[in-house]
């Protein structure tokens, strides 16, 4: 595929043909009626609008708690969401989409749904919203008393967006980079970026009608030792790409790494960078909020230990003043959680959020240094990306991934260079053992080298790939750093 992408705003009128094809992708596409959808949204109580709820929380300085959850059947899914709202005290709700839908395999999703009904248990790992269609999905929005978001992992999420937004969902996760590199193998970035521009343009169109939909690039990427500079770079690019299509309410995210100082620094720098690069594009009417994901890598199988990991995540979110936190469950290492386990994760999280509501991580030199490193690294990556794109962020992103200027560790995509290798330093912060082609200055390279050498000395081994493997298993085995045993 040739590099046809650009970051320019799509003309709504020119999308008509494409929209028709998209909506024809599955029979439920015919249910989409934009005019009717706008009316529905405009009549929706303000407290059910995700974007408004986030702005309110940001102003109040509160951190909101949101679970992940989705099962195949509509009634069971609604029951699940009501349970998380009423018994869990969730401030925001999700609808997690199954993996067939994420790969646009609606036939397989249909089969999985049918079998789930038959067996009386979900054989799908999420809610197949496309198969359920607009009217069914609307039952969710109408039955809940907190806002609800679509969460998935779909490289081509156009039909899913058409259907769920028309159904009244007010937030939509994903992006052309973050829902490709960790979630696909061979989808070209040109294609996923363009498909997500469609989604962003659709959201921008809702915005033009006075309906604000929240958009959220997927922060954690592969969830496994992703350095802040990598995920921040992706988050900023997707924020710019979304804003270019008229999106006005964006939540940028970051997945907990485990060193509290690094995590707080990451949360603090995230909006700084987004606003800086938006402003450089002379965009200044976008509301930016942040999301912190509780540890996204391997979890301990023991539920009590999992509660420890979950609480540490909640505490870090509060101290770093994230606008919302995505909550894990004590079943993380066991399988898709029961609704009870899911509600427990929310309640443990809310207890610590509430207790720390009026506390922030105190400003200190180590925190400032960590912020400085993240800012420097991310700017190096982003500036190089823009240079490669000759001023165009979409083109730049494609070329940056091809060149390894952005390079996500452990990603399945063949369009990711895969030459970086992260490892924890002696205090558990995520550093680079190999930085591949990340455009780091010599100073920064030396910084990483020194940090890992320090750990190496403490462990009496030279920094190597075994450290990485040990780090991958560490939290699951009850520690942060994979020390030799």
């Amino acid at each position: 595929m040739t590099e046809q992408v650009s970051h320019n705003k799509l003309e709504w009128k020119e999308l008509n043909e494409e929209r028709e094809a998209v909506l024809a992708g599955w029979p439920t596409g015919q249910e989409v009626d934009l005019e009717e959808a706008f009316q529905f949204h405009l009549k929706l109580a303000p407290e059910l609008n995700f974007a408004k709820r986030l702005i309110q929380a940001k102003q109040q300085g509160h951190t909101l708690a949101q679970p992940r959850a989705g099962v195949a059947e509509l009634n069971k899914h609604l029951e699940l969401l009501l349970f998380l709202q009423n018994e869990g005290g969730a401030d925001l709700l999700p609808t997690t989409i199954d993996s067939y839908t994420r790969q646009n395999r609606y036939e397989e999703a249909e089969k999985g749904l049918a079998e789930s009904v038959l067996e009386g248990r979900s054989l799908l790992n999420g809610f197949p919203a496309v198969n359920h269609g607009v009217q069914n999905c609307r039952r969710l929005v109408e039955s809940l008393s907190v806002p609800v978001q679509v969460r998935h992992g779909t490289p081509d999420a156009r039909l899913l967006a058409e259907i769920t937004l028309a159904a009244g969902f007010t937030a939509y996760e994903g992006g052309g980079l973050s829902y490709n590199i960790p979630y696909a193998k061979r989808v070209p970035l040109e294609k996923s970026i363009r498909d997500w521009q469609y989604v962003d343009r659709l959201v921008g169109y809702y915005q033009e009608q006075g309906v604000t939909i929240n958009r959220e690039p997927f922060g954690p990427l592969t969830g496994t030792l992703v350095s802040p500079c990598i995920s921040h770079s992706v988050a900023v690019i997707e924020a710019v790409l979304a804003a270019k299509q008229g999106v006005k309410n964006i939540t940028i995210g970051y997945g907990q790494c485990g060193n509290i100082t690094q995590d707080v620094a990451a949360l603090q720098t995230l909006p700084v960078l987004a606003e800086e690069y938006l402003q450089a594009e002379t965009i200044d009417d976008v509301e930016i909020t942040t999301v912190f994901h509780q540890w996204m890598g391997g979890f301990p199988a023991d539920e009590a230990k999992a509660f420890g990991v979950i609480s540490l995540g909640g505490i870090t979110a509060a101290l770093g003043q994230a606008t919302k936190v995505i909550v894990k469950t004590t079943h993380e290492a066991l399988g898709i959680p029961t609704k009870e386990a899911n509600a427990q994760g929310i309640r443990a999280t809310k207890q610590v959020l509430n207790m720390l509501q009026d506390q922030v991580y105190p400003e200190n030199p180590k925190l400032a240094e960590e912020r400085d490193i993240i800012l420097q690294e991310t700017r190096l990556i982003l500036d190089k990306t823009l240079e490669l794109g000759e001023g165009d962020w979409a083109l730049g992103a494609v070329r940056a991934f091809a060149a390894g200027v952005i390079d996500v560790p452990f990603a399945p995509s063949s369009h990711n260079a895969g030459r970086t290798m992260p490892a924890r330093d002696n205090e558990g912060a995520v550093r680079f053992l190999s930085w591949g082609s990340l455009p780091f200055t010599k100073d920064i390279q030396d910084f990483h080298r020194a940090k890992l050498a320090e750990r190496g000395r403490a462990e009496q081994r030279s920094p190597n790939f075994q450290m990485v493997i040990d780090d991958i298993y560490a939290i699951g085995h009850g520690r942060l750093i994979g020390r030799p045993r």
Partner: protein
Amino acid sequence: MESKTLVLGVIGSDVHAVGNKILEIAFREAGFTVVNLGVLVSQKEFVEAAVETNADAIMVSSLYGHGEIDVRGLREALIEAGIGDILMYVGGYLVVGSQDWADVETKFKQLGFDRVYPPSTLPEDVIPTLKSDLGM
């Protein structure tokens, strides 16, 4: 001793890549020739790779919960391709949610797997058994 060839991959629409990368490295370090198909691997790709590389065993991963659906018919496809008795292991989060492990194991054995492993499996838990199953 001649090295044995393993075909490795994560089946279906599953993109969990981390365990797959670790298994590749561990099997290679243990002396196997590893053909790693990565994630998002179809049954067809497994069968073709096994035939093409004259593999000694197929190692299927499924983490995301749809494994139960995704592996149906794989053993039959191997039979059809003339390598019906190839050794085949499966591991990961094989069903949605956490079900009784004994049931899961039985289910996947009926689906044609020689050995079935839970998600907490470490490479060192598998390699000795694999070597013995392959007569190494």
